């Protein structure tokens, strides 16, 4: 049987593609995930955490009604989320459909602190032939995407054809060229933690730079236990290969309290090295303004109405 070429030299040294993934105990993983929400993040730690969360946001618009004008709003918001006096970093990226990439690139310019992420490979269902998926990826990269958020083939995964899932990810990685690859597992459709863990292993071994929970189009989207299972997979992969894979929970994270709980989970599962936008992202659209509202509260001492915060 022909084995697909592995994308980097380092990955070739890893002996097996996807050995049986470790199992996950649902009760205990949910209990552990809940324990992070009990951390009490106050004062200076809260402010630092909120700013860090802003810097990790992939500001997202993924709608049929997206236009160049809407993308312009999004890019400007990502570059400068709030007035300079609050000293808030820019967001990590904007996340758009492939057709919007060229407008985002035009607006952000060639060199920008904000990356452009494009969802691709037949997002959100992934129910498309591989050649069209790859053409989509190449086109988005050519238009200036720094990051590609692909979806895995859940049809193949649930039918037990894990090799197909692997090969598609590996092919997509190749098509990405220099662009970073985030692999969306769509955990809401995989349902069990064991599936999430196995899909994480496949995605990492096939060449994903990031693993991502959801498209945001399926409910439930990101949850803390699912994210924890993925963080644990990343941890084991790091010890096995020496490679640091990134994590992106997406969808369902709407307020600051949730975001801080996710950051606590990252800090206490993978440690400080993962607490940066290179290795951890939030896929969100409404989260940013809640973070900003809390930041302004910390700075000014009182809450402002939502009209004081620009819409993305």
């Amino acid at each position, binding site marked *: 049987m022909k084995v697909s070429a592995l994308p980097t030299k380092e990955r070739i040294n890893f002996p097996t593609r996807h050995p049986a993934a470790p199992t996950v105990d649902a009760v205990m993983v949910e209990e552990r995930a809940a324990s992070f929400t009990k951390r009490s993040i106050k004062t200076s730690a809260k402010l630092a955490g909120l700013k*860090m969360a802003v810097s990790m946001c992939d500001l997202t618009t993924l709608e049929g009604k997206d236009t160049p004008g809407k993308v312009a709003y999004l890019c400007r918001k990502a570059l400068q989320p709030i007035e300079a006096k609050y000293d808030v970093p820019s967001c990590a990226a904007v996340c758009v459909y492939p057709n919007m990439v060229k407008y985002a690139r035009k607006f952000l310019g060639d060199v920008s602190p904000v990356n452009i992420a494009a969802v691709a490979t037949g997002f959100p269902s992934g129910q498309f032939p591989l050649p069209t998926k790859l053409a989509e990826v190449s086109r988005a990269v050519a238009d200036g995407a*720094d990051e590609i958020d692909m979806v895995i083939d859940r049809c193949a995964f649930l039918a037990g054809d894990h090799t197909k899932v692997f090969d598609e990810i590996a092919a997509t990685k190749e*098509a990405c060229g220099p662009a970073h690859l985030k692999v969306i597992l769509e955990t809401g459709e995989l349902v069990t933690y064991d599936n999430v863990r196995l899909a994480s292993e496949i995605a990492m071994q096939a060449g994903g*730079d990031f693993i991502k929970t959801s498209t945001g189009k399926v409910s439930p989207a990101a949850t803390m236990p699912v994210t924890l299972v993925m963080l644990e997979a990343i941890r084991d992969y*790091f010890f096995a290969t*020496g490679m640091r894979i990134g994590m992106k929970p997406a969808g369902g994270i709407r307020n600051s309290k949730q975001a801080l709980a996710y950051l606590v989970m990252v800090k206490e599962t993978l440690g*400080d090295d993962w*607490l940066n936008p290179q290795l951890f992202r939030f896929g969100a659209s409404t989260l940013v303004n809640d973070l900003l509202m809390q930041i302004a509260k910390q700075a000014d001492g009182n809450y402002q109405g939502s009209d004081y915060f620009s819409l993305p």
Partner: protein
Amino acid sequence: MKTKTKAVKLSAKRIVAAINHAVVPLKDRKLNFGNKWDFAPAPEDSKNYVIAPQHELFINGKFVAPTSGKYFESINPATEQTLTTIAAANAEDVDSAVKSARKAYQKVWSKMPGRERGKYLYRIARIIQEKARELAVLETMDGGKTIKESRDVDLPLVAAHFFYYAGWADKLKYAFPGKTPSPLGVAGQIIPWNFPLLMAAWKIAPALACGNTVVLKPAETTSLTALRLAQIFQEAELPEGVVNIVTGAGETGAALVNHPDINKLAFTGSTEVGKRIAQAVAGTNKKLTLELGGKAANILFEDAPLDQAIEGVIAGIYFNQGHVCCAGSRLFVQEGIYSKVIRKLRDRIQTLRVGNPLDKNTDIGAINSRPQLEKIRELVQSGVDEGAELTQTHCTLPAKGYWFAPSFLTGVTHAHRVANEEIFGPVLSVMTFRTPEEAFERANNIPYGLSAGVWTDKGSKIFKMVNKLRAGVVWANTYNKFDPTSPFGGYKESGFGREGGLQGLAAYCRLD
């Protein structure tokens, strides 16, 4: 697959982003649990709760001074500051407490219909819920346990025990089919310092539900919340003398054990004291239940869900600073996964936060007393002297108070003292095994038998192990889970009799 792509210029940002492609060499593969994003202090507010400078005995529904006039100091083990002074009861005080309990038993409580007794218990449970935060803060200040645990574990369980046994009070005749239950009389109850209020609830609630009256002696270092509970009994208008609380050290306990007018003794504490109580009670008509020490085996099979099992190991030994009689203090790891487990354990304990027990983010609080700290130190040193390797967290311990960093010992064999003696502190002894047979043989090869844990993905293996392990409680893929409906108690030198559930009810009834 061939697709046409245009060359893309790498932006500066893209190069930065490419950093995580670097392969970290084997020796540098470490997680960095540093202070990049340190949590600011988040202490629970304690200044609203005033602790009276002096506490009296609770006899016949009133707070009364001890006849000796003697008081002892109760300190906060996290700060070494004196919290209050507590009355020392002598034999005379114990006698008047027993007399008051006898009177209440004969005149009021044993005659009261079960549905009426149940009302009092429900009322007590509700008041405990209302005052849960205050009681949790007091428990933390008095005993050194973290506010997270006293708030989220101890207090909800305390209320749950009163609610549960309140429900039985009017249904006793249906509890034991074919038998007629009747109360025993006056129950003497001696409780330990690791879960002061919870142990009081475990003992008082079933005793009262069955129609007994109580003389309770809390542990010397942790009397505060029991006396606060006495105020709750007053508030609930529990009839005078139904519960009496005598505070003091070992002599007070001895006076209670040896009092001739006690019908039932219930003791939770060390095996050493338990044996002395059993000797003292031998030949008398007193009914006895003992809940003593333990040295539980937590057994980790290679097919276990590992990351979750590690959480269970952590919960098993570091919960309540390891001051838990059913703590999973012996970890048996199947050899094939040993190095992985040790690596994960080492990383995990690094994230345990040790310090001010009132801080909501603290995972490990203070050791309950100086003698206990000395005992932990002595036993750990013996482990090191006998050749075990000690791993501890790198945390800085507060200058004042009694502290012991979360630790585990590797290279422990069955012949080590730390593999056999109860440390009662945040110290885990790690050993290995090869087959399920070896696992239960080693787990059972100890004079204790209170609890055990089994971690495997395979249901049949769980059932096999559960049937072979000689322990009162066996947890499968979880650890340290408590519920008032579930009986708790030991085999061998971990004691006899059960608390909780129907079995806990039977311990306070005569069944004819």
